[in-house]
């Protein structure tokens, strides 16, 4: 089960993910990111501080947006990841493709740098 909340802060869309992302709940994450992109946000931050587990399907969702966001010049920064979740990202080599920060201010700073 997963809970996804979106709130806007300083012109960036913050998507907070709470719980586990597995094959079925990954659809919700996909929907949230798609909405954010569709609504024209120029910066997307993903709050992973309450993310307990992410399956390959969930990772697939992040992966599938890499190209699209690059083309549209929208930086997406993930932050606050727990060690285990971060490990999953790094083993798959997804950490190199995504922008990952440890805290929210850092994530904002990184997003600002990237959007220039």
């Amino acid at each position, binding site marked *: 089960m997963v809970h996804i909340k979106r709130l806007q802060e300083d012109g960036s869309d913050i998507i907070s993910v709470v719980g586990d992302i597995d*094959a079925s709940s990954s659809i919700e994450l*996909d929907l949230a990111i798609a909405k954010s992109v569709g609504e024209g946000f120029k910066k997307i931050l993903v709050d992973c501080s309450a993310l307990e587990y992410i399956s*390959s*399907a969930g*990772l*697939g*969702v992040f*992966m*599938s947006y*890499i*190209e699209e966001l690059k083309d549209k010049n929208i930086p997406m920064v993930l932050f606050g990841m727990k060690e285990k979740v971060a490990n999953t990202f790094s*083993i*798959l*080599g*997804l950490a*190199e*493709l995504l922008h990952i920060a440890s805290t929210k201010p850092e994530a904002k700073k990184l997003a600002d740098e990237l959007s220039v």
Partner: protein
Amino acid sequence: MFRTKAIIRLLFLGSVIAWLVLVFSDITILYSEIRQLPPGVPKWLPGLMLDIFVVCLFYYYRYRIEKDESLNFTDLLWKVFATGLIATVVSLVFRLGEFLLGASKLASDPLFKDFIYQINLALFLSFLLSAYTSWKRLILYQKSKWLIRTWMVFEVCLFLTLLYDSLQLTFSGTTNTIIIIVIALLVIVLSANMRWVAYLNFKQKWTSLLLLLLSFFYLGYFLFTVNSISSFINTASPTFQDFSSHIFNVCLLCFVMVYSIFSFLVILFNLPTSSVFEQKLEEVINFQRISQSIQTEQNEESVYNILLDSSVSAVFADAAWLEIESETNGGRFFTYKITKEESEQIRGHLKQHNVRGALDQGSDKTKNLSKYLASVKGARFRSLIAFPIIVRGETIGTLALLKELPDGFNKEMMRIVSTFANQAGISIENFRLMEQAFQTERYKEELKIAKTVQKSLLPAKLESDPDFEISAFAQSADEVGGDYYDTLRINDHQVALIIADVSGKGTTAAFHMSQMKGIFHSLAQQELEPKEFLERANQALAFCLERGSFISATYFVVDTKTKTIHYSRAGHCPVLYYKASENKTQYLKDRGTALGMVRTRDYCRLVENNEIHYAAGDVMVLYTDGITEAKNSKSEEFDYDRLEKALQEVAEKSSQQIEKHIIGRLYEFSGSSLINDDYTAMIIKFR
């Protein structure tokens, strides 16, 4: 069968002989009486012969009629009628002969008259006995213990009267009367058993009435004939015993008469209600049809058709329609003697008047909507009732019945149709459940096939070398996973190894797995550097993998000449390596991104070549995340540390023993033999 036939013939012969002796002896006695001579034969002979004649005929008919199971009620009546007809025709032939003789001396001779009398008596008795046997069967239809006993008593009484007659014990007129009254009472009690009449249909009742009427005629004819002849003989010989002086004959006649009259009257009075009985019977049959309509070759459509037909015939509706709502194919409409337009007009009218009823499918109650029909323009119907058809608590359709008469439906009719509608609902529900079961079965079958395909993709035999031994383990959960491992000898000193995990599950995962196998087998033979292998594999997969899918893999080339392992990791779980010289285990956490993550040339930046030297005793453990992510009851993961520890415990043993131990530890940890993911591991032991 043969025995019965022989017995029937024997009995018939016996009765004929008895009758011939009876005629001869009777005529002799009469002759000697008229001539005032001492009789040449004993006086009791005719009586005895009559008894034998009656008993033979009694059993004859018993075999002919009572034991014949194939006879139905009208057949029984028909048998009686036919016997009567034959008897009457024979009798009439003799009467004609008598008439032709005219007023000759022979015609008025008492002896000749006696002969004619005996013929008529025999015919009459045979007719009575055949009727008696038939009536017996009718009375004993749906018998009870008490009824059988009463009948036994009656039969024994009849037999006693027969003996009483032949012994010629003439006590007094009152004794005779008492005997007759007792038997008459029994007859009346027995005649109350008319259950068979209820089972006749309308046509059969008319037939029965006609047959009974004709039987009355025969009875009357014979009674008249026998009486008139005997009274004629009586004038010549006063001691002549006529028919009516035999109590048995009287009793038999009385029984046959009374039961015939009772039957006739009961059938006559049952005529108007017979249609109701038939109707009920038809309802039962229809009900059965609906409940049995779910056979393999039938479908929902046939249930609807049967429901419509049965309901219409049950309530004599002039028209009907059946509307089925369905999301999948837009609903269906069945009509009976009404056009679609006409029904739509009525429905539209009801809607206009805002009638909340079964017709709008929002109600689950049967509604009598007749009162709204009066205001429909030009409609021929004056009565309308509607029934909902409910499947699993949901109204799926409406059955509407129409009549041209006002107030055409009574409570009984509503109740019957409502049971029909309920039964149809149950039938349809069963049908849908069955359909669902089939679907699930088919889905399961497909999964099974996918699983078999996946299993067949894994190598049956792994490569071996003097330098190393390999053993592998793969166990998958109910769902089809996407774990893949394989080995391939490139040349005499190089062997390629791969372990991969396709994201996702089910048939798609198995499909991608087979693609991976194809890529491995075609690229590995080209002696590529591990990095280049992954780059090319990524390129090949870029167009096959759907959005969001990827494959994590690690590719190895073991070179036995240089004793090195060249490998490249593409997002797969880090290899667990045991170095025997240092007695240490470690995870080889090198850079590398999974295949399909980046589908451009940029991918080459994300993977790298790695190289390690191996020595005898080293162990390499390749595995998938199913193992490290295996959970116990406390939701803890098996994780890297436990895996590492498990290897350390048995690192010096053979590859097979290592594999067994790791899997053993894994099951021990998860605490059950149930697998919730795919467990795949490949152990390479160098020597």
